[in-house]
């Protein structure tokens, strides 16, 4: 382990693996830090150790991860798994914790490839044991061959919800119902995208097949569902919802929620990157140039963390960021970067054809989020939606002020689970835009670490004086 690298890449999913491989292939000294102990990110979780059966079930998309991992292993890039990054500074410093030891290392460039997370939408009962993200169950299956054994309800919206449903059906999991919050009839906005999407027919065909599989299974499938609620006292026992005038009620041991994915933006916000609000997809993403460069010269972003566009696009964006960093080092001239980037840009463009359709079809509709006053919004600090509305009624207009007054977003997760909905709720209460309501400020540590770890760090604490409360006496007042 060295303490300085040409480039540090954070995240070993498709974007990070590709960026790291590309840079190392040019002879640059690269380190990839990843929080998991195996490469692949969420989409290619554990792909290197996957059984042939799992590779089959997860399909061609998953198998592609093997190609990436092979390239990466050959590239000579260094890799450190189970390394949890807890601070990044624009000057190129990175602090991470691994096996109970924290280190600070530096790099000339940093590529953030932190990926996406499931959009957390608070519903009544979502804190009950047995309510999980659909992506969580997908990850458990890839990582540990775990498969739900009881009755399951899947609820929410987005292609990954249906994908997970299809997978669970294939695994013969007992599914009581699929409850889609997506409306039954596509909006005109959706139809305008259809033509463009037809250019990416392989993608569409996969979607159609998935829906046919679900239909064939006979699992009850409702659309336009509202008022989702997990029932139970100490664990989930059932799920309730409305579908039009119909009241739905299912017994279940698990409720798997999925409301699409959003960029995991904490690391960008910690750095102070300029953030933009996507009004259609309703998420914040960092502002970057065509190569992924943020407003900080040394900090690049790649993959779904910069805006959700899927695993293939993430791979292409990782390559593009790496090519530009290589040019910045003076390893290749600009015209060579452009020549190498050409086919990648073409592939990226082709991959993006069906996306507007998918995005429009599953676009989150804030009117469909009901957010009852009694629902727990901040799981860590047990703050309800009503608590937040109450403090807004006392004149609070900024998310960070809500946090200061109500502790919403102050717990261990640092607002990862409540932040997106908090923005929606405060903006709606104030009848203002989300952009105006602001974002929760993120500061170190990104992930908690024991005090002993930071105390033991090999850094010099010069220039930091403990507060001298006797200071009030050090100078005589002139009066």
């Amino acid at each position, binding site marked *: 382990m060295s303490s300085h690298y040409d480039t540090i890449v954070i995240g070993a999913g498709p974007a990070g693996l590709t960026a790291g491989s590309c840079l190392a292939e040019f002879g640059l000294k690269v380190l990839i830090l990843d*929080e998991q102990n195996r490469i692949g990110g969420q989409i290619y979780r554990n792909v290197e150790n996957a059984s042939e059966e799992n590779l089959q079930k997860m399909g061609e998309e998953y198998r592609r991860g093997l190609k990436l991992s092979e390239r990466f292993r050959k590239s000579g890039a260094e890799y450190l798994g189970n390394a949890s990054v807890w601070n990044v500074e624009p000057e190129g410093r990175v602090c991470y914790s691994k096996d109970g030891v924290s280190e600070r290392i530096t790099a000339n460039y940093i590529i953030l490839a932190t990926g996406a997370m499931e959009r957390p939408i608070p519903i009544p009962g979502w804190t009950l044991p047995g309510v999980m*993200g659909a992506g969580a169950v997908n990850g458990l299956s890839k*990582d*540990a*061959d775990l498969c739900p054994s009881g009755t399951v309800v899947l609820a929410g919206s987005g292609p990954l919800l249906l994908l997970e449903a299809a997978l669970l059906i294939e695994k013969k999991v007992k599914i009581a119902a699929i409850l889609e919050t997506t409306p039954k009839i596509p909006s005109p906005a959706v139809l305008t995208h259809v033509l463009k999407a037809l250019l990416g027919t392989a993608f569409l065909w996969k979607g159609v097949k998935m829906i046919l599989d679900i239909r064939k299974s006979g699992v009850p499938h409702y659309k336009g569902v509202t008022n989702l609620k997990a029932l139970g006292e100490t664990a989930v026992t059932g799920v309730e919802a409305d579908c039009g005038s119909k009241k739905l009620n299912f017994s279940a041991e698990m409720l798997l929620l999925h409301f699409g994915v959003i960029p995991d933006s904490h690391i960008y916000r910690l750095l102070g990157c300029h953030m933009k609000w996507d009004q259609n997809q309703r998420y914040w993403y960092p502002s970057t140039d065509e190569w992924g460069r943020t407003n900080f010269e040394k900090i690049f972003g790649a993959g779904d963390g910069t805006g959700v566009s899927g695993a293939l696009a993430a791979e292409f964006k990782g390559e593009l960021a790496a090519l530009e960093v290589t040019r910045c080092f003076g390893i290749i001239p600009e015209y060579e970067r452009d020549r190498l980037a050409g086919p990648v840009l073409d592939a990226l463009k082709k991959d993006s054809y069906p996306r507007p359709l998918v995005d429009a079809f599953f676009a989150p509709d804030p009117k469909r989020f009901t957010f009852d006053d009694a629902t727990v919004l901040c*799981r860590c600090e047990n703050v309800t939606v009503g608590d937040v509305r109450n403090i807004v009624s006392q004149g609070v207009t900024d998310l960070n002020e809500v946090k200061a007054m109500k502790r919403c977003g102050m*717990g261990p997760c640092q607002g*990862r689970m409540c932040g997106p909905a908090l923005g929606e709720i405060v903006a709606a209460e104030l009848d203002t835009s989300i952009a105006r309501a602001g974002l929760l400020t993120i500061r170190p540590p990104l992930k908690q670490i024991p005090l002993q770890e930071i105390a033991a760090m090999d850094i010099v604490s010069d220039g930091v004086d403990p507060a001298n409360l006797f200071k009030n006496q050090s100078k005589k007042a002139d009066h």
Partner: protein
Amino acid sequence: MFKHDPTTTSTVEIILDGQTIAVPGEMNVAAALLAIGKIISRISPTSEKPCSPHCLMGVCFECLMEIDGVRRQACMTPIRDGMVINRNLKDIQRGQS
């Protein structure tokens, strides 16, 4: 809540809440406990209600457990033979004790 084919992985022994217990190895702590039906991860210090892992990708912090003396995210910690894990299920971590 989950089924796991025990032939696919090795087994390790850990001390969970004071009891020696065998769990599947080669996975993270959260997954290993789910595999043996231990779905409760902790008692929330604020609501005082039981929690279970929610995201399994390091985001939700619902799987915080005392692992070898330090509270860590179980989903981000690989299980190891001899690990001492306390979920402190009876111990309400309230300010006013």
